[in-house]
């Protein structure tokens, strides 16, 4: 059989997941020299962009501007989008094998890691990812409820997601109204009675995952004072020694900013955002109706591992904090795809530089690849997925050259589209999406907002006259 990748028989690649990684992979594929490529990108949501639409905070529009680059990639001849088409529901891996030479899984990390402590499922305790998806208008989460009538909320974790959640809870209605936050979330948060938001980090300020722009932004909120506790932002001897051995300006700056927040007198703003360090939640407690009332924290100290990494170790000192809301933000977690091998402990698709491995033989499976968070775990910024997808696509090109691809019985764009039409007649194409996009932007223009999102699948279909 002739090798695919020619004008007569283009290389047909299916990309599952329309987040940043999917786009970067498509871009790398189109740029593979000497290969004629057709890319079909699938997403279970009708809308593309993955976490750029559903994860990046609505008050961070500049980060969302990366979608312009994604649209340019999508404009490449040979690119198609099938939104609202889910692997395992509308199409199986077997279906893809019949229509594509190569399959790339780029489904990211769709859920959160649990804390594994008692009381985690009390009413009022939520994964931060749910709240994030809710305020960003994700159709699966738009009907979630969050009790913002309480006085204090805790966010477990000090990564950028935790900071997003805390910041959104502290924004005024006016600040939020300038963003593309979902309408229902704007309404709910405008009525919020939350007066204090506490971020909880298990290690010290030098180990916190949030970046400096994020932490600086917390000091510039319109109606919330930021605070840290002097004894918690003072560097412990181990962190100080580590910084002296390997001076790192970003970390030094981070520690400085956090220390300056401890010295700031309250300015009388109506909300307070407290960033705590060296504490871990050990239990959530509730009232007899099962509603969260408080969180029990243990104080930690830092110990060094063999490799010099600083890890928290609990002490015997506890503290109780009354809270009505807890958001856990201790990391995203990938979920298995039906018919695709999954490594449960690391929550990734086991792979070798992006080639999916057979879990038993540990040998690559022909024609199956992975990239992004489901390949390496949830680390890095949006752009980190570009070199990551590049590594995978290099393997894909190598395998095409070696004749190691799937041998689909119907390797044509028409056959694939017919199958999708049969299984999911209500799929959304890229031109459809661009119309929805214009519509959302137009809806926002009237009120000076970047866009007003459509948050129900039926709404989107109706807007397209379907």
């Amino acid at each position, binding site marked *: 059989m002739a090798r695919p990748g020619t004008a007569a028989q283009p290389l047909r690649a299916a990309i599952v997941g329309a987040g940043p990684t999917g786009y970067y992979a498509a871009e790398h594929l189109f740029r593979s020299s000497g290969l004629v490529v057709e890319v079909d990108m699938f997403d279970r949501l009708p809308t593309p962009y993955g976490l750029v639409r559903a994860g990046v905070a609505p008050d961070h529009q500049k980060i969302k501007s990366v979608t312009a680059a994604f*649209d340019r990639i999508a404009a490449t001849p040979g690119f198609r989008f099938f939104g609202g088409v889910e692997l395992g529901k509308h199409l199986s891996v077997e279906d893809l094998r019949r229509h594509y030479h190569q399959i790339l899984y780029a489904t990211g990390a769709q859920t959160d890691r649990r804390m594994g402590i008692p009381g985690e499922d009390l009413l009022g305790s939520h994964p931060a990812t749910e709240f994030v998806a809710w305020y960003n208008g994700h159709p699966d989460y738009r009907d979630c409820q969050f009790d913002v009538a309480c006085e204090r909320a805790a966010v477990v974790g000090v990564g950028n997601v935790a900071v997003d959640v805390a910041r959104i809870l502290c924004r005024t209605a006016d600040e939020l109204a300038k963003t593309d936050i979902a309408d229902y979330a704007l309404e709910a948060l405008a009525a919020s009675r939350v007066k204090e938001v506490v971020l909880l980090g298990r290690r010290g300020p030098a180990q916190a995952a949030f970046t400096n722009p994020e932490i600086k932004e917390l000091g510039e909120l319109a109606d919330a004072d930021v605070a840290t506790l002097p004894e918690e932002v003072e560097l412990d001897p181990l962190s100080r020694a580590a910084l002296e051995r390997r001076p790192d300006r970003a970390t030094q700056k981070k520690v400085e900013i956090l220390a300056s927040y401890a010295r700031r007198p309250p300015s009388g703003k109506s909300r307070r955002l407290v960033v705590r360090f060296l504490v871990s939640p050990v239990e959530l407690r509730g009232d007899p109706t099962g509603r969260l009332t408080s969180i029990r924290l243990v104080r930690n100290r830092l110990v060094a591992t063999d490799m010099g990494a600083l890890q928290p170790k609990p002490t015997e000192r506890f503290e109780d904090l009354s809270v009505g809301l807890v958001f856990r933000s201790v990391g995203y977690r990938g979920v298995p795809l039906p018919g695709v091998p999954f490594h449960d402990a690391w929550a990734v698709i086991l792979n070798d*530089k992006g080639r999916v491995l057979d879990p038993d033989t540990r040998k690559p499976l022909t024609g199956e690849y992975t990239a992004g968070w489901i390949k390496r*775990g949830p680390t890095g910024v949006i752009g*980190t997925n570009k070199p990551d997808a590049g590594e995978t696509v290099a393997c894909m090109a190598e395998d095409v050259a070696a004749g190691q691809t799937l041998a689909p019985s119907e390797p044509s764009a028409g056959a694939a589209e017919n199958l999708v039409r049969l299984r999911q007649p209500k799929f959304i194409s890229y031109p459809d999406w661009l119309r929805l996009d214009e519509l959302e932007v137009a809806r926002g223009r009237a009120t000076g907002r970047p*866009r007003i999102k459509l948050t129900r699948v039926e709404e989107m279909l109706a807007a397209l006259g379907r």
Partner: protein
Amino acid sequence: MNIASVLASKGVRVVTIGPDASIRQALALLAEHNIGAVVVVDAGSRPVGILSERDIVRAASRDEGVFGLRVTAIMTHQVILGSPSDDLASVGSTMVERRIRHLPVVDSGKLVGIVSIGDIVKAQRDHYQGELDTLQVQILATEPPKGAPAH
């Protein structure tokens, strides 16, 4: 970023050898897998040492009969182990400071992978490249995401 994210896309194949195998066998493994070190494990798959190219070179310069020696005779016994939750920056600098090129990674006593200094450098390079790309996009974005033309 931690070690787990490096291991995930390395295929978790760790080439191991028993302490009583010969250096000849060890060399065959190094050549076959194109690697610079093998982890030496006991009967219970627990790491008891590491044998690197350096160990073999050092032994060969002293003893031309090196091929017939047992692994345990020349391996590095004081093996330094990493954990999947160790952060990349600490691991990277510790490896440089202590001149370690290969770090076996254990999770609850079980050997789950090995990372080389090259893996760490690559992960850090990709990380910085990603930050750079993202920052560029943000700096160059003067308009709100969907201004006018694009489509």
